[in-house]
């Protein structure tokens, strides 16, 4: 439970760097209440795979160094000690810290010309989350809310469409969907645990709950004879959804995964969370966000990237491979992003600082031109020299890759609001 000391100590980073505590024991209590939900059967998953788009975002919190990942510059003053290695895409090299990912690059693409003009953690993250710059006058919904709403999956169902797996605690629905309303707000799975309150407490007997809910339905039915509205229906229905969520709780329970898979992904938080992400998209969840922390390496950048990127490489490549093997990758957009990159300049503490001027994002799967590299930086990585893009372009690109017309609008209480920043557009050459 050590606080990360090499980071810049802003509020965003005062979180546990890594939590080695096994949460398996904490999850164990959620015994099966009912058979698997409808989406957990392989046949259903396959059926869904044909029609439903979904998205996994891996947030490299703190700011992943592009030089120690997707845009290495070996042998230059800014390049640092690590080599670049060839990948499964001819001509494409990435950092040697990603040997497993290098083997699956033919499923992925790299955007190397990102300039977001924002070196503050919170504001940078806001740009990457919403595709727009933060203004006091208007709040925008985050990517997960936009995707959940645009694909409108599970909108009337029990399962949330927008999941954030958090290495820390927390739970419940978050207020990150702005004008799209709480329906599309993220539901946090704190520590990778199932949603808050989804487990019946030991003090409440199941028959008492059944009895109470039967009575609730009768009381509602009587009132409905006098007046029924869309709102009263939605309210009555929310309890049925809650009960359904309890029945489908196993979707969120990775202890149900095989021991072999658990070992393949690793027992650390990030590995378990990637496995949970796989389980969730297989179960029909639209959007899942996983975090890996902490890349805010103001000192000892190379040691920490060696350790962190190394930890990322295995579970990430396993996840991509599994999605591909299960026929899900064609319909699942997967994005590895940060709030910004890190300075080409190496500071006296062997660290790299905040850098939004020329950095990279890796993405792949559904809707993406696999193996593509878009954008270039100069020899030292200090400037974008070709196809410069910002957060708005990325946001449009994600939506387009998901089959959503990103220039479209949401109808919010009769008001038409653009889904993505109208001043930006998708990176067409990246779309398949």
């Amino acid at each position, binding site marked *: 439970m050590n606080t990360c000391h090499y980071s810049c100590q802003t509020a965003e980073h005062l979180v546990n760097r890594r939590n080695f505590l096994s949460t398996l024991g904490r999850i164990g209590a959620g015994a099966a209440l009912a058979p698997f939900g409808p989406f957990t059967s392989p046949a259903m998953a396959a059926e869904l795979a044909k029609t439903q788009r979904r998205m996994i975002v891996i947030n490299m919190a703190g700011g992943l160094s592009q030089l120690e990942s997707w845009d290495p510059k070996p042998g230059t003053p800014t390049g640092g000690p690590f080599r670049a290695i060839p990948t499964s895409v001819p001509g494409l090299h990435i950092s040697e810290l990603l040997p497993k990912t290098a083997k699956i690059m033919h499923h992925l693409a790299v955007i190397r010309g990102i300039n977001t003009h924002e070196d503050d953690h919170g504001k940078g993250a806001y740009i990457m989350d919403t595709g727009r710059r933060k*203004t*006091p*006058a*208007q*709040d925008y919904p985050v990517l997960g809310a936009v995707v959940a709403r645009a694909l409108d999956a599970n909108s009337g169902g*029990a399962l*949330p469409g927008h999941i954030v797996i958090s290495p820390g605690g927390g739970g*419940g*629905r978050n*207020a*990150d*969907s*702005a004008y799209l*309303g*709480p*329906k599309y*707000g993220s*539901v946090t799975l704190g520590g990778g645990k199932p*949603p*808050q*309150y*989804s*487990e*019946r*407490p030991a*003090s*409440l007997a199941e028959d*008492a709950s059944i*009895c*109470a*809910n*039967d*009575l*609730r339905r*009768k*009381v*509602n039915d*009587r*009132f*409905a004879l*006098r*007046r*029924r*509205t869309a*709102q*009263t229906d*939605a*309210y*009555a*229905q*929310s*309890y049925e*959804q*809650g*009960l*359904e*969520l*309890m029945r489908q709780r196993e979707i969120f329970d990775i202890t149900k995964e095989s021991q072999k898979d658990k070992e393949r992904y690793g027992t650390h938080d990030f590995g378990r969370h990637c496995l949970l992400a796989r389980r969730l998209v297989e179960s029909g969840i639209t959007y899942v966000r996983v975090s890996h922390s902490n890349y805010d390496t103001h000192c000892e950048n190379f040691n920490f990237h060696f350790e962190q990127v190394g930890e990322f490489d295995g579970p990430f490549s396993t996840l991509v491979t599994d999605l591909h093997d299960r026929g899900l990758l064609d319909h699942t957009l997967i994005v590895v992003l940060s709030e910004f990159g890190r300075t080409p300049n190496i500071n006296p503490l062997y660290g790299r600082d905040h850098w939004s001027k020329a950095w990279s994002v890796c993405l792949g799967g559904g809707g993406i031109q696999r193996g593509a590299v878009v954008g270039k930086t100069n020899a030292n990585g200090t400037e974008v020299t070709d196809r410069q893009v910002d957060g708005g372009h990325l946001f449009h690109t994600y939506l387009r890759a998901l089959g959503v017309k990103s220039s479209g609008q949401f109808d919010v*209480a009769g008001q*038409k609001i653009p889904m993505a920043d109208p001043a930006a557009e998708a990176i067409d050459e990246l779309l398949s």
Partner: protein
Amino acid sequence: MTSPTLSSPAISRVVGIKQGFHLALVAFATLCATTRADEPLNVKIDAMLEASHPAGQAALANDGEFLRRAHLALHGMIPTAAEARAFFADTAADKRAKVVDGLIADPQFAKWLAVRLDVMLMERRGETHTKALPWREWLEQSVAANKPWDVLVKELLVADGADEKTRHTGRWMLERDCDPNALTKDAARLFLGRDISCAQCHDHPRIDDYRQRDYAGLQAFFSRTSFFRPDTNKPGVVGEQAAGDVAYMSVFTKVGGETKPRLPGGAELAETAPGEWAVAPDPKDKNVRPIPKVSRRGLLADALPADPAFRRNIANRLWAIVFGRGLVEPLDVQHSANPPSNPELLDMLGAQIAAMKFDMRAFMRELALTRAFQRSFDLPELPPEVAKAAAEKLTAIQQEAATLASAVAALESDADKADKAMIEARRAAQPIQAERQKQDAAVAEAKKAVDAAAAEQKKSDDNLAAKRDVQRLLAEAATKVGEAVAKAGESPELTAAAKTFQTKAETTAKDIPAAEKDASSKKDAASARSVALAAAGPVAEVAKAKADEAEKGIAAEQAAFEAAAAKKSAERIRAKNAAALAVQAKAALDWVAASTAGRPALDAAAKAEADFAAAKQAVDQVNAEVAAAPAKLAGLESAVNLAMADLTKAKEGMTAKGPAAAALAEAAAKAAEAAAKLPADAEVKNAAAAVKAKADGAAAEVAAIQKSVGEAQAKADVSAQALAEAKAATEKAKADIVAKQSQLAPLEASAKAARVKADEALAAIVPAQNALAAAWGRSFASTDLLPLSPEQLCWSLMRSTGMLDIIRDGATKEFDKKTPLTDADKADPAKVAARLAAIEKAVRDQLRPHEAHFARAFGGAAGQPQTDFFATPEQALYFENDGTVRGWAGVLAGRAAGLPDAKASAEELYLSLFTRMPTASEIAELTATIAARPADKKNEALTNYTWALVTSTEFRFSH
């Protein structure tokens, strides 16, 4: 919808126009004319509303519904069972008005209104720069002190947050980072009822009433404001500059202008004291916060109360607090294409609240006293004559709406043309204005050059004069020294001095021509500059005249546009209103049609279901009889056996005693004969008497036995007959049941078929009901079901279950244990009040985490509108699996469990949670729920039942 509509030629052509709907208009128009100034506001409101409903309105709600609604509207929580009982028992005619007055006088009113104002003004923003609690308390004190709304707004707007003691008043601006656009947007939304944020960069693309010029004018009140925080170790405050104006340009048309502060639709305010400081910036000390002499936010605060939009906005928002929805919805989207459901009413209310000096308490009291506030949410069965009248009216109403709509289309086109002309005028003026600016700049440049040349000339002249002066003095000195030598005689020193002066004077004199030449050239240069300036002046004058002309042209186009837009907006409001009335009339008609058409099916289903239920009951009864028959027959058989046994026994007695009695009787007869022959023989007489007595005894015994034999016989006969009858009946029942059972199936089938038809009818009725409910709800002809706000839900739960009392009792005990009042203290009103305040504070401290939880779970996100309803599985799971609410339900269940019977328990639950008595079937349901559990689980059964009530729609929604 006032009288001019009636005289419209297009309308007067409509046949039947004088009937129905327009009678309402006439009535309304008449009413407006005759409404007396001294009538209470609530009477005026009802008169206007009732005159405007084309197809009637719902009846008044019953006592329970009224009481619940009044408590929710004015206290933010439902009444207790005790309050409900007291109100039901009250027979006073004015008891509803008394409740309203009582609620408004109670401190809870201020607490609740403070919550509503807080949520409205802050939209659940966090605590980045300020604390929420002192702000909330300040609002509560403001409401308690009956601070007028305009004063409250002024305090918000002029706050600077610099004084720690009153920093909370700056929360409205500080939590918006004092960002001029954020403040402009929210001032427009919260104080003027219009969200013009889309007009920041251009005229609103879809709402043509929202203009960029209006945005810029409003922004000019805030454009000098910024977040002032020179020292990041100290809290930031609100800063303001003394100068700076707003220029705007549409990103679409590339045409714009400049503006002084101006309320939307109003005139630009004159600038007073531009650039003047009350506290000037200190270049040496960045920590000194400059304060302008005149604050533009202060100007806004002073200008707002006179603005009709400001008046309508607060009237509408307070209306929404009382009624659950505004006359315009959304509250911040007032414009002519989204007019109030009753525009005249909102105008009147705006004028009235201003006349009431923005007294929120008095205004809300009037609203709560209206009949409109008491309308039931049940839609009445409209009688056929209403349907007929509505049908007759409908065509006329629809036609009028169509006519008005086409008139509006023409006006829209006019306004559009005027808008384009205005844009063209502005565009045409752009080069002229640029030329003027250029010429003005040239004049300024020339003037600067003149000033510079004049300065140069003066410098040169001064130099020349100085040189001449020196030369003169030196020459004079030389002369004087020469004279002195002449008079005083030669001395080497004096001679040398004279020479020195002489030489210096000559040297100086040599410089003078150059200086003279320089002065002359500088003079020439200055004259040239003056000439240039003189030449530039007229050019600039011409440019200015042209520009002024263009400005006049723009102003004229602007005025033409404003006039066209105003005309269009006014007419559009009428058209929209007519369309809304048409919808309302149509909805009423559809409701009548659907309920009339559906009624037979519903009745048939009810009858078929009743028939089936009766038949089923009969079959069940017979079944029960047949089932019970073996036991019954067994009972009867054993009775027969018993009777036969008795009979046998009695007969045996007869056999035993009969012969002896007969012999004794014979002996007695013979003895009597003997005694008769010997009358004097006493011995014989005595012996005969003894025999007779014996014989009589035996005879009596035999008679008794004989009687019991008869009785036993009768009993045996009856039992046997009963048995025979029972056997026959059972046989008959067995035979019947086959027949009855065979009847049951068709009855059930027809009940099911009737139910299918009834459901089909309901499928038509429910949408019709909802359509009418929506139309009536919108126009306050009935009441909508509306979700409780997070605070209403939390407070209502805690109060109705008794949790609040438990907390208060605990806080009271805690206080009295720690700091008990002495008898002397108890006589001191200040100490008594302090004790109550301390207890109240402790209660609130304990409530706050629960309020915060409900706000997070059931409220909107920070900075987002807080009126959207949503129901998520997470909310339901909180009620389902978090122990808190179930624990509260347990408190109420415990109270109900202590009552003598299920009926009393049911009454306590339903009065506490639904403010009504339970129906017979609800009492039966609770009885069955308790009976289904073992006796020691009664509390659990009651808790389940209570939980079901608190999670029901009837609890979640106000009605």
